[in-house]
């Protein structure tokens, strides 16, 4: 772990802050804490953290508002914390520039995995035309995907779908984002396209399509390409 990575936690609940602080410090992060949205925006500007964990349910202003204010000037990766039953809040936050989300109650290993993915993306690896995600190798220049050395026979739409996920590998991509990038802005409501193509892709990629390991559905929110490096 990089001991210099500083994470800003914007969260009003002391218990959650303490849990985050203990787990993150245990994993080698330096932790900064803000108890309100206003303090969070100020600290994000003055302390320049490498990562931000933002609770959507803050007492002084909505987390969504805090996110928008931070996004006005900073591309810092932001992980959102939300409660279970608010898919629309999650989607709104993701479409407003959040990089990923976690649902309360969350597990610490999951949190650390999400943060690692965000760090990886913030290092800007996406500029390399050839990328490896575990057993899967992407050649973005040649429109080629190989799985365990075997080339996948994908239609252009399937490739487009998989590519969007791979460009954000490990991170959630919202339904809207995929539909817009693969089928264009007129298709953003056609979520059934996603079900059909996710099922098709799984048949080609997954060992057991009914128990997917690569393409993970997050119902009502989006899809995630999961991998282990």
């Amino acid at each position, binding site marked *: 772990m990089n001991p210099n990575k500083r994470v800003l936690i914007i969260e009003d*609940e002391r*218990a*959650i802050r*303490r*849990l985050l602080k*203990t*787990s993150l410090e*245990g994993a080698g992060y330096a932790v900064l804490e803000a108890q309100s949205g206003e303090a969070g925006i100020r600290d994000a500007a003055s302390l320049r953290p490498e990562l931000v964990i933002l609770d959507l*349910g803050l007492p002084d202003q909505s987390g969504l508002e805090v996110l928008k204010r931070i996004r006005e000037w900073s591309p810092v990766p932001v992980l959102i914390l939300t*409660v*279970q*039953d608010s*898919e*629309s809040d999650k989607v709104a936050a993701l479409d407003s520039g959040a990089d990923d989300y976690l649902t*309360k*109650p*969350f*597990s*610490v*290993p999951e949190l650390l995995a999400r943060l690692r993915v965000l760090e990886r993306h913030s290092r800007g690896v996406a500029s390399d035309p050839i990328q490896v995600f575990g057993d899967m190798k992407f050649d973005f220049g040649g429109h080629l995907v190989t799985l365990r050395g075997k080339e996948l026979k994908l*239609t*252009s*739409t399937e490739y487009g779908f998989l590519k969007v996920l791979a460009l954000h590998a490990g991170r959630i991509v919202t339904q809207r984002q995929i539909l817009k990038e693969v*089928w264009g802005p007129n*298709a953003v409501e*056609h*979520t*059934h*396209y996603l*079900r*059909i*193509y*996710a*099922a098709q892709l799984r048949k080609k990629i997954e060992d057991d399509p*009914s*128990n*997917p390991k690569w393409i993970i*559905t997050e*119902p*009502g929110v989006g899809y995630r390409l999961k991998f282990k490096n």
Partner: protein
Amino acid sequence: MQNSSPDRSSSLLESWYVLWLTALVSLLGAVLEVVAGYRAVGFLFLVFVMLLGLVYSVGPVLFAAGLSALVWNYLFIPPRFKFFVSNSEDFMMLLSYAVAAGVIGVLTHRLRRMQELSALRDRSSLFLVDFSKILASDQGRDAVALKAMEKIEARFKLRVGLGFAEGSTFLSPQQMMVGDREKALMQKALKEGSFQGWDGLSPRHLAIPLQGAAGPSAVLLCRRDSDTQLNQESKELLFATTEPLAYFLQREKLREKSLEAARLRESEFLHQALLDSVSHELRTPLTSLLGSTAALEHSVKASDLGPNRELLEEIKASGERLNRVIENLLDMARLNSGALALKKEWHDPAELVQLTLQGLKAPLSGHVLKLELAPELPLVRMDYRLLEHALSNLILNAAGYAPPGTEICVSASVHDGNLEWRVADQGPGIPEGNLERVFEKLFRIPGSPAGGTGLGLYIARSLLKAHGGDAWAVRRPSGGAEFILSLPLEPSPGLPGELAA
């Protein structure tokens, strides 16, 4: 008013008086004739008829006009003592007299009648104003209705009572006795929406229905004493009073309803606010509790934990269970308040099963899971989170009742245009009589193991019904219970170009 003329006996009496009065005036005329001549006598008769018009009714007045014309002709106009007029001037005068006397008599009578009527109308409207004032007061329905009825009793010399269409309330200022016949009369008035009684069948009782927004809402029952007779005007006034009374009752009913609705809204609002706050207050410590156990598990080596590992597992399992209870309570609150908004999207029904089971790994770890997903299941339009909640409630219910080590089979297939998810267990099953009851709120099969809120199945069915589907249970022939969630399929959505081609 045509039918308000006094009856015949009083007319005859008046005519009898007219006869004598005419004789009296004739005597006066005889005196007058000596001084002013026979023509002046005509004027005397004219004044006489006019005065009669102020007191008597039309018949006797016309009788007086005719009689006096004859008397004048016979006794005064030459040639005397003959019904004959020799002078053409006299003839014209007699004729004009007869016409003038008749017209004046009738006009005067009419004027008097109009005055009487308008006085009556004034009294009636004064009464109605007073009556409305009583109804406008703010003392509660029953107190006001009783006061209004006292007013009616005083005005019409009746005994009255008020019976309501809903419930068995009967209000009466003087505790009027109501027998079966009166009840039947009131029922009939309610049913037919028209007044009943004061006829051969029921000479003393009258039942007037009071019209509400949706049919008669109450009946006013009036009892008259045998010697009380209401004339037409009074009857009309009595009916007129029932209108403001009916409005009053309707208004009271609406007010009661809107108060009730406001109370309900307020309580629902509080209910929702309370549950939101409770959910937040419970989830925050729960997040820290579950997060901390996961962090412990993650950071401490299994061997170092030793026997404490089981304790940690227990904390985790309980925390997760508590989390599901909170979920149930929240959905319950939404269902109750009607604030359940469905976010319908197309979803893969097989994926619903897979993801639901993934989330239930820990509570299902003691059972053998079997998955039966029909190939090529159509997409279903549903609120994913709610359906997942319904399905996991069924699965957790099965896991709670079926002994560890037994098989729980979860399947998805299409039946008669419905998508059906089935959860079959090898537990003790459900007694025949309880197949429906298990879906009731807070119902638990007697003697069933502890744990569970009694809300899971109720919520599952409510959520499916909100989708236009249903949930039910059957007994498996091989023993055990099977729960079914069924959702009607909608026409498949249009496919993207590449696939459709």
